[in-house]
């Protein structure tokens, strides 16, 4: 049953990749491969209902990330990134970070990404020809480095004794609520909060100045 589901999902992923990046068999295969890997990782962990959905969402997250990186059309990249952010928000939900999940959707996906969309439309960026991924050393160095990096990170986790997720009765009721978040923000970390607001103002001023048409 699970295997079947998994296979279906893999085929869907491949089709999706194919559709989004036509004429790129390698990329399609790559996308499908990573999706399969993600899924296997998910399946390995004794699939329960939540686990399955967590796995799917994870797969989607990685897929959309890949699309962001690979697709020539920046618009598609932006939309894919938005999808990615939504997947992450779902993750946050699963991890008892409700406030943050909502904030992610509102602020990140809702404001920042909208900004990106505006800029792309303003600059009227079209799909790049030939993807121009960059010359030899850069490209292969980056890809190899990426594999090495991923391997390193995963290797760092080798000695972990991870807690099981979602043990019943594990979490206090107040965990992840806005109240507790706010309490920390304005309690223990008030300085950081104020600093963040200063940062925001600075960013605003900076953005306005930088994007001005002409200083006359």
């Amino acid at each position, binding site marked *: 049953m699970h295997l079947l589901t998994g296979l279906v999902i893999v085929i869907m992923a491949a089709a999706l990749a194919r559709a989004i990046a036509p004429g790129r068999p390698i990329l399609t295969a790559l996308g499908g491969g990573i999706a399969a890997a993600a899924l296997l990782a998910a399946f390995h962990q004794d699939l329960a209902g939540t686990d399955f959905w967590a796995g799917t969402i994870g797969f989607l997250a990685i897929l959309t990330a890949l699309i962001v990186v690979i697709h020539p059309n920046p618009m598609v990249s932006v939309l894919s990134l938005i999808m990615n952010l939504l997947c992450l928000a779902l993750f946050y939900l699963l991890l008892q970070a409700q406030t943050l999940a909502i*904030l992610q959707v509102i602020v*990140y996906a809702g404001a920042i990404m909208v900004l990106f969309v505006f800029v792309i439309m303003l600059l009227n960026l079209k799909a790049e020809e030939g993807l121009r991924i960059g010359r030899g050393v850069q490209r292969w160095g980056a890809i190899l480095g990426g594999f090495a990096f991923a391997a390193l990170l995963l290797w760092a986790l080798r000695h972990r004794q991870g807690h099981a997720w979602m043990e019943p009765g594990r979490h206090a009721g107040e965990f992840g609520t806005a109240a507790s978040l706010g309490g920390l923000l304005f309690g223990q970390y008030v300085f950081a909060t104020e600093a963040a607001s200063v940062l925001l103002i600075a960013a605003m001023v900076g953005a306005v100045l*930088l994007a001005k048409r002409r200083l006359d």
Partner: protein
Amino acid sequence: MRIDFFLVMAALLFTIGCVGVLVRRNIIVMLMCIEIMLNAVNLTFIAFSHELQSMTGQVFALFVITVAACEAAVGLAIVLALYRRRRTTDADDASLLRW
């Protein structure tokens, strides 16, 4: 399923984001890849906060979102200014330091 799943996920996302920054030439897409990286970090924070039962992780994640917002804003403003000057969004065209 263990928390490690999320950590693995975050690691993979971070790597993808890194590779994306290095591989793409369009500045805006590079910025987006940076966002991916920031999100991966957020995921790590929240996963650990869940494991350690500490809200600090989520606070941190909030700050990360804040900073990401600022950085995206300023970064895009720079992109706009650059575009006005040179009519290009190719990172390799900003190579005045090259002889």
